[in-house]
């Protein structure tokens, strides 16, 4: 783990002289720990994401599904607004995880049946329901990190983020007051495209969230 992280931090120090002494101290501690452990992965707080930030959307309804080539409502975009997270301190984001909670809607204002609930809980084939929502990450209103090189695209969270057990690894340094933003789209209706609503009502997501696991770079 050490070298990639150390290189990223050393470049940060070279690019920002104001933070160089603090980063140098941090690097010295980490390299000492690596040396003491004989080069194996050391245990301890310096390698754990001590801070966990969550960007969360609630009560997401499915959006209109268009036919392929219909540019009015492509499956890779969303009408939902971005949800911002203001970075509270200089930090190193070490991983991303995601999770969603589907919500079953009963038919005709009657009580929800266990069969309806069971059908909703069977939706999806990815851990943490990450194939029930798509996600797009951005920074400072200018960059979106999902793309095919020409257009900004949203992809299923099952391809973009990991889960808490195994986050998607990152070595992303962001600065105090930058705005990380995320946008979510409920894609349960992609699974259920063409299904008669009399069989199952459209599935909402009561919660769709991504978590960022980070280290505070300003801490001594």
């Amino acid at each position, binding site marked *: *783990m050490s*070298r*990639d*992280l150390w*290189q*990223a931090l*050393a*470049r*940060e*120090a*070279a*690019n920002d*002289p104001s933070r*160089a*002494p603090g980063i*140098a*101290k941090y690097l010295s501690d980490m*390299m*000492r720990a*690596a*040396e003491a452990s004989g*080069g194996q*992965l050391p245990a301890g707080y310096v390698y754990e994401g001590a801070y966990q930030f969550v960007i969360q959307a609630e009560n997401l309804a499915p959006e209109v599904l268009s036919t392929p080539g219909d540019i009015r409502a492509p*499956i890779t975009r969303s009408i939902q607004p971005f949800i911002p997270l203001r970075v509270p301190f200089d930090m190193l984001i070490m991983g991303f995880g995601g999770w969603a909670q589907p919500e079953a809607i009963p038919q005709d204002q009657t009580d929800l049946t266990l*069969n*309806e609930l*069971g059908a909703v809980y*069977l939706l999806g*084939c*990815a*851990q943490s329901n990450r*194939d029930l929502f798509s996600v797009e990450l951005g920074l400072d209103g200018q960059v979106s*990190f*999902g*793309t*095919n090189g020409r257009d900004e695209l949203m*992809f*299923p969270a*099952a*391809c*973009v983020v*990991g*889960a808490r*057990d*195994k986050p*998607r*690894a*990152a*070595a*992303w*340094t962001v600065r105090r007051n930058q705005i990380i933003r995320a946008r979510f789209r409920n*894609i349960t209706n*992609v*699974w259920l*495209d*063409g*299904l*008669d609503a009399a*069989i*199952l009502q459209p599935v909402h997501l009561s919660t769709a969230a991504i978590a960022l696991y980070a280290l505070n770079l300003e801490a001594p």
Partner: protein
Amino acid sequence: MPTPSSLNEAIALADRMAANPADAVSMADTLVSVIERLPPPASGLLSRPAFNRASLWSLGVSFENVLPNGEAPPEVILCQHDVWIRGVSICVIPLVALAAESNLADLTARLRLFRDACATQGTNNRGLVEANWRVDSRQGFISEGQSEIIAPGTLIAGDGFWSAPLDWRLQKDQTIEVRLRSRMNQFFPLSLGTNVTDAERVLRWVTVVFWAEELRQPSVR
């Protein structure tokens, strides 16, 4: 070839920079160089497990309504920057459309079928497609030794939870061409006859996403 540095050398330099802000400024580039020249850890490959790999960009393509016969038109990713491709994941969403007379029990049975099939097809339904990719039209990255093949998604891609590790450095304006074919005729074999229609073999949405790190700078400003 640059002379390897040592961990002691890097620690001494970092200590000096931490103690003296003036040295921190003047020696920062030297520290970068020293760390880059550190030898790999004694434990070798096992010291760099998959979670070590950092990525930021999701470079991907989207295929909709993939039919069970024939190959979907290839989609192309254009690299906007010099990038380091670190991994690839596939997500497949099948169409669980049912006949008009179906009911909730039928829907549940269909959903359970796909959920249970994860044990054989892999998570994210990766086994429902075959894929390969070419870089700048160069073949061979998915190959049987002599010629390009198109291989099951379960074998060549991850599911986000973990990623099939890659280690490609691509330059700006290079392209990755992704080819995709449905395996639904194997998952729902034709011997099912009228029990499964062609409409039920359509894959509603398939995404292939490469995780990439921008090489110009390790962090985003």
